[in-house]
Structures are given as structure tokens and as C-alpha cells.
């Protein structure tokens, strides 16, 4: 293996690794382990949801009925397009000639993430106007509906936080990559960041079903 193949002298090579291939293997294992533990973090919330749904199915159905499918559905579509764009960016990143192409798709993914947040903002605004935030003014009297909305705010809020971090990471990737094209080709950061972005989409795919679908048909 030549010096270049080992990534020696590359700006992407970090301590403690001596070869870029090993750094890539370790980084990928790291992000998968991170995703698995994050999945369990959300898993605790899913488990809480399941127990309360079991205890108060009527309250959960009525709560879910008050959520707005048009917002949830458009956000699901936006995020699916976004993670498809991230997948294209990750594939293209390894060819120096395709750096600009790949970064264009990183920007598409990040902008769709911003669109998701904008739609979420409209939804939150509408929810607050309808008094769907748990508290003394909460709109639905059925037992369990308030718990459903506590879950709604916590889960979507945490997901939005992950999304904001993801948008920041994608933007950092595109900006640094434009300044240092060779770094962009060498670094495992492109794959790691797009994997994180895929994870954020996986969580939303599950949340969409838990939040918007139970209360649709009676």
C-alpha cells in the first residue's frame, strides 16, 4: 500500500489512527453504536407510549385525532426526500471529480431539513392555538389524551433537536468540503454524518405512525 493509500499526510487522518482505512472502519462502527444507543434512548419513550396507550386507548385515539395529518404527512415526505439526497451525497463523495455534485446533495438534504422545521413550527403554532399543550387549559377532557400530548411534545421536540444538530453537521460538511476538496474525499465524516441523518429519518418514520395514525378511523 502506498503512502497516499494509507492516507498519510491527509488532512482527514486523525489521531490515534495511522491509516485512513482504519479510521474509516472505526468511525463507521462508532456511528452505528451511537445510533443503536440513540435508538434505545428513543426506545424508552416508545415503551412509555406503549404502556399508556395500553392503559388509556380512548384518550390516545382522541389525542391522536386532534393532531394534523397534513403537517405530519408532508414532514414525512420531506424527510424521506432528504435522506435519499443524503444517500446520493454519501455515494458520490468518494470520487474527487464528484465533490461539487456530492456537496450539492448535502445542501439539498440540509435545506429539506430546514423545511421540516418550518412545517413543524406551523404545526406547533396551530397546536398551541388549539390548547393542546398539557396544562390547566388543555382542550381534551378524556383521560389519557393529555399524556398523549405530553408524549407528542417531548418526542417531537427531541426529534427536532436531533434534526437541528443534523442540519448543522451537514452544513459543516458542505462548507469545509468546499474549502478543502481533498479532505472531503478522504474523510469518513461524510458517511458518518449521512448515517446520522438516516437515523433521524428512521426515528421520524416510527414517530409518524405513533402520533398521527391511531386516531384516524373510529
Amino acid at each position, binding site marked *: 500500500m502506498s503512502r497516499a*493509500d494509507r*492516507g498519510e499526510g491527509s488532512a482527514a487522518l486523525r489521531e490515534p489512527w495511522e491509516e*485512513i*482505512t482504519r479510521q*474509516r*472502519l472505526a468511525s*463507521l*462502527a462508532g456511528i*452505528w453504536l451511537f*445510533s*443503536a*444507543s*440513540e*435508538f*434505545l434512548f428513543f*426506545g*424508552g419513550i*416508545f*415503551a412509555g407510549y*406503549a*404502556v399508556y396507550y*395500553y*392503559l388509556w386507548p380512548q384518550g390516545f385515539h382522541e389525542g391522536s385525532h386532534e393532531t394534523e*395529518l397534513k403537517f405530519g*404527512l408532508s414532514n*414525512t*415526505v420531506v424527510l*424521506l*426526500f432528504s*435522506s*435519499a439526497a443524503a*444517500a*446520493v451525497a*454519501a*455515494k*458520490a463523495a*468518494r*470520487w*474527487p*471529480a*464528484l465533490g461539487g*455534485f456530492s456537496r450539492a446533495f448535502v445542501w439539498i438534504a440540509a435545506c429539506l431539513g430546514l423545511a421540516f422545521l418550518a412545517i413543524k413550527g406551523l404545526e406547533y403554532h396551530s397546536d398551541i392555538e388549539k390548547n393542546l399543550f398539557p396544562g390547566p387549559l388543555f382542550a381534551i377532557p378524556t383521560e389519557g389524551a393529555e399524556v398523549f400530548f405530553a408524549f407528542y411534545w417531548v418526542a417531537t421536540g427531541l426529534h427536532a433537536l436531533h434534526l437541528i444538530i443534523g442540519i448543522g453537521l451537514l452544513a459543516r460538511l458542505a462548507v469545509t468540503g468546499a474549502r478543502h476538496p*481533498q479532505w472531503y*474525499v*478522504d474523510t469518513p465524516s461524510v*458517511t458518518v454524518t449521512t*448515517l446520522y441523518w*438516516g*437515523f433521524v*429519518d*428512521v426515528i421520524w*418514520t*416510527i414517530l*409518524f*405512525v405513533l402520533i*398521527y*395514525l*391511531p386516531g*384516524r*378511523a373510529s
Partner: protein
Amino acid sequence: MSNDDPPPRASELIGPPALILVYLLVILAINVAAAFAPLGGFKFSVNLALAGISVVLIGLFFMDLKQETPLNRLFAATGLAWLVILFMLIFSDYLTRA
């Protein structure tokens, strides 16, 4: 790590994820339709199963789990395995209460 193969055409890079995206959108449409269908007690299970298929597609193709090393597939599977344990222990309590 630079790749010495000749770069593929844009259509070769966009095509496969675009196809998976179409599948995902179709599954989403079916899932929303199922939510309005009179499926009774099965409705939520159907919704969750369809979401599960979507998650598998995203994992295999967008997150490239298909190409990953066995170690990384194991890492991805542990998240799911521990979640199953969590649900089994919780519901072995709630579902068996008198």
C-alpha cells in the same frame, strides 16, 4: 480515501436511491390509507408493520447496511434486540396483571 475507478454518471448515483424513495412513498401512502380503513384492532399493528418495512428499507439502502461489515450490522441489530427485551419485560408485567 480517494477512489480510482472512473466516476459514475449522475444517473447511476441518483437512480437506485430514487427507486427506494418511490417504494418508501408508496408504503407511506398505503400506511395512511390503512389508517382510515376499518381494520378494527389490527389497524395499529398494520401501521407499525408498514413503518417497520420502511425502516428496513432506509437502513439497508439509504444507510447502506447492505454493504456494511458484520460488526456494524451487529451494532445496528443490538439497538433493536435491546428494545425487544425492554418491551418483553414491560409487557410481561402489564399484560399479566389481574
